[in-house]
């Protein structure tokens, strides 16, 4: 007897698409064609002149000339490419190209929109990118805090509260003892709230989402109470120094990249380092492996002698410290003083960045940058005087987040044990 295989096992490429897949591909195709039509019919008509994007300040060592884009031609080219991508998607189905096509398509549409809005005018592209990075910092750090705790399967709704606690502590201690002390204290207090979250959910088995919501309420109450009871009377307790930008020699002189990446303050570099370190930690080290095991299959980790509870405590506390650092950005890295509720929901957006970034530090950073971009974009558009009401421009980052999450990410997979309490036998 021999092991016979039927000749011509159907190769993967010819496999008929599942209806859902085919539909997804078609929807993506239609969306792209829709964008093409939008660009062609709404942006292109009556477009005149060129859009000027300033890349350098006159004071920069290597000044680049302005980037001048002929608006009408650009719009037509963009529409053409979009139509091509859409048609391809529609006819051939997508498979793994769907995401890429959609990504390119969205980027093109945004570029076309930007050129349309800027036609005949000018703005500083470098400034916009710099703002993108700056505004991404607290979101990226919030997202990273989310990654660290959800990788050990503790859902962290409390990021917002941890950011706020960090901001408050940074302002208070920073005012009294100076910036560095403020920073250390902010990290410590963030860590303390992380520890509290861990204690509530690990030791006292409180529902993870309730625990997070409650910590947010608690921190909001405590900081608002303290600031109205204390800061109002003692102003000098709410006047912290701000960490100034540090120009990295040579690199900071690069055109565009220099100001965007290498002329930033401690928090930007800190966020970059933390993302890099935690990526290394989670995916290349022994303790990272153990942490991920705890998030995926805590019982397995337990049977191998890994202390699930301790691992959760440690990582959620670390997450709190990262969020505390991110919170300090609001005060020590930006405006030097605390104001009630000043994090303004950035922690929740960080949570979104974490999911959008697929529970990966780099993903969370990328998502935060998308958000920061949409944010700085709307500010530029408001300056350029587009006919769009300012309220709608202000929605841009949120709408962008929804579109990206719906269109590009879809059903991302969280760590298998995420949100589930682990009960030792």
């Amino acid at each position, binding site marked *: 007897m021999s092991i016979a295989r039927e000749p011509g096992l159907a190769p993967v490429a010819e496999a008929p698409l599942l209806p859902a897949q085919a539909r997804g591909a078609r929807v993506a195709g239609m969306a792209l064609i829709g964008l093409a039509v939008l660009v062609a019919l709404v942006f292109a008509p009556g477009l005149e002149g060129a859009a000027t994007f300033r890349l350098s300040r006159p004071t920069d060592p290597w000044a680049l000339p302005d980037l001048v884009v002929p608006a009408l031609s650009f719009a037509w080219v963009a529409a053409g490419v979009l139509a091509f991508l859409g048609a391809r998607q529609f006819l051939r189905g997508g498979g793994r190209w769907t995401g890429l096509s959609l990504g390119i398509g969205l980027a093109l549409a945004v570029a076309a929109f930007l050129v349309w809005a800027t036609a005949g005018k000018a703005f*500083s592209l470098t400034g916009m990118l710099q703002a993108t990075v700056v505004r991404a910092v607290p979101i990226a750090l919030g997202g990273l805090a989310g990654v660290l705790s959800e990788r050990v399967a503790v859902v962290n709704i409390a990021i917002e509260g941890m950011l706020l606690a960090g901001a408050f502590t940074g302002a208070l201690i920073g005012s009294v003892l100076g910036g560095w002390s403020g920073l250390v204290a902010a990290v410590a207090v963030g860590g303390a709230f992380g520890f509290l979250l861990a204690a509530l959910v690990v030791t006292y088995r409180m529902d993870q989402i309730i625990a997070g919501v409650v910590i947010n309420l608690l921190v909001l109450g405590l900081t608002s109470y303290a600031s109205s009871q204390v800061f109002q009377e003692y102003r000098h307790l709410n006047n912290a120094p701000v960490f100034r930008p540090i120009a990295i020699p040579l690199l900071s002189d690069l055109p565009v990249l220099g100001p965007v990446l290498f002329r930033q303050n401690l928090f930007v570099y800190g966020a970059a380092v933390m993302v890099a370190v935690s990526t290394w930690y989670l995916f290349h080290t022994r303790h990272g492996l153990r942490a991920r095991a705890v998030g995926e299959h805590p019982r397995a980790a337990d049977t191998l002698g890994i202390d699930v509870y301790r691992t959760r405590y440690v990582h959620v506390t670390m997450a709190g410290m990262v969020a505390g650092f991110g919170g300090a950005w609001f005060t020590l890295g930006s405006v030097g003083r605390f104001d009630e509720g000043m994090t303004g929901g950035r922690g929740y957006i960080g949570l979104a960045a974490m999911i959008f970034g697929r529970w990966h530090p780099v993903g969370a950073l990328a998502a935060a940058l998308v958000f920061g971009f949409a944010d700085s974009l709307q500010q530029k558009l408001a300056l350029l005087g587009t006919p769009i*009401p300012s309220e709608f421009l202000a929605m841009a980052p949120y709408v962008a987040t929804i579109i990206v999450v719906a269109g590009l990410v879809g059903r991302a997979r969280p760590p298998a044990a995420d949100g589930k309490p682990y009960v030792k036998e």
Partner: protein
Amino acid sequence: FTACQVTDTGGIDDNSFNQTAWKGVQDAMAGLGVSGRFLESQAETDYEANINSLLGGSCDIIITVGFLLGDATKAAAEANPDQEFSIVDYAYDPPIPNVLGQVYATDQAAFLAGYLAAGMTQTGTLGVFGGINIPPVTIFMDGFHRGAMYHNAQKGTEVMVLGWNPDTREGLFTNNFDSLDDGRAFAQNLYDEGADIVLPVAGPVGLGSAALADELGTDALKIIGVDADLTLTDPEKAHVYLTSIMKRMDATVKAVIQAGMDGSFEGGVITGTIGNGGVDIAPFHAFEDAVPAELKAELEAIRQGIVDGTIRVGG
């Protein structure tokens, strides 16, 4: 005599009108010997309840702050005709006999500030942004813009004002009154586009802009404050404020309390103008020497013009 204040949701320490009005009460406490207290509103649903809890004789005058309390104040005033009320930033038409509205011709002061800024800019570009696109905010932006344009017309300059287009009535708005970080980011945005003087019209948000100016240095960026003289209410950053567009709510509030004590209280409207000192620009403080004498003289002339009506700041 007891004066009671109800804040809007901004809270008593908003570095803006609630705080300025409270300063008026405090001045009255110090100067007139009255006692005063305040109630903070957490949410709009609190307004009515807060006013109600002050009724019943414990307060001789109730001062409500902000146009958002307009409805609640009216309802309470009509239900309690013997209680004296005064509301900041709001006027009733027709007037209510027991409510005195306090409103301000802010654009007059903003006009001066616009002219000053146009005279001071090195880059030929000014920036302005607001909290939300609503008239109490945009009136500053309008006045500022017209003041700068007046400078252009008078002196042949080509100063640009970024962030507000008085024709389309669209511009740069943070859409909130509490994110200090937005204040910084929006000022940075304007600075990137060349502005070296920025007017943030968004309450405490402007403190974030001041932090940026502090960091960049006042050669690169100066800030114009709103509502109060920010060199006094934000002493830590006093050096970044070129001037402030003041709504002297403290003065009008104190005057209203005085009237209540004298028995001269009467319902209606008082309007703060340049003429009666209800609005003005603040002294230049740190920039006293930097502002050329010639410019100071021109500002004085414009002030006169506004008072006697030869210069119209309105649209």
